[in-house]
């Protein structure tokens, strides 16, 4: 498993496409995909949006990372880091941020590589 993380608009997906040779058709978009899509695709981006959609539907995500590890251990995941602001007033916003952190922390522990992208430059932190 590989995690590519960083702020919005930093070139994370372009970096991953080039580095891991991912074609456009191989990408799954977290904005509109199902869990099954994630579990059988090569690479997923907008993973933070997927988490948000799950949070909005009140779906428990404590087992998500484990499921990915078990069923799709080679997955390449591109996600925005979203936990770097003032704690939001709205409960849903807090739940989402927290879930992104928790799920990605478990995924990072399973990952062979974690790359953090800033301004298109990747820094390997694991």
């Amino acid at each position, binding site marked *: 498993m590989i995690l590519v993380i960083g702020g919005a608009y930093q070139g994370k997906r372009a970096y991953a496409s080039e580095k891991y040779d991912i074609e456009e058709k191989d990408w799954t978009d977290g904005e509109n995909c199902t869990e099954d899509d994630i579990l059988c695709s090569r690479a997923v981006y907008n993973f933070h949006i997927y988490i948000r959609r799950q949070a909005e539907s009140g779906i428990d995500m404590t087992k998500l990372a484990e499921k990915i590890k078990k069923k799709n251990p080679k997955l390449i995941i591109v996600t925005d880091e*979203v*936990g770097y602001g003032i704690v939001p007033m709205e409960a849903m916003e807090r739940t989402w941020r927290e879930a992104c952190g928790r799920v990605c922390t478990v*995924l990072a*522990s399973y990952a062979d590589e*974690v790359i953090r992208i800033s301004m298109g430059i990747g820094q390997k932190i694991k």
Partner: protein
Amino acid sequence: MFHLITGGSGSGKSAFAESCILDFQGKNRIYIATMFPFDEESHVRIQRHRKMRKEKSFSTIECYTGIVKLEISPDADILLECMSNLTANEMYQENGAKDQCVPQILAGIDHLITQARNLVVVTNEVFSDGRHYEEETEKYLYNLGRINCEMSKMADRVTEVVYGIPVRLK
């Protein structure tokens, strides 16, 4: 030794900070809890952290303001969590330091460094959502930012925890 630990929301800062304290292999582990339990959600969070510490034999001091007044034994390894709460308490609580919050907190940190064997402080990255807030919140961000910058100067080691991965900054 003073180790400053930062990170975003849900990044695993607490678990990492606790493991740092265990690595000191001392006999007296003290947890300074700064989160004031004002609602159900903070109770849940406090319970979660308590459970994490239970097996690690920490004694807990609840201190919402005025850490400068704490008396600490010289063999103590202290974990203070978290600076973002302490700053809010000092700014907004009735007996807080109000406008003097930055120098008061820094004096408190200096006091803990002098008194204890080791100090680990957990703070929070809350500065990168690109939003502009109301004056009070901006003042809070300004104060916490200054406190973090000053603490990092005082620290022997600074680590940012990213999804559970420690990234060393100093």
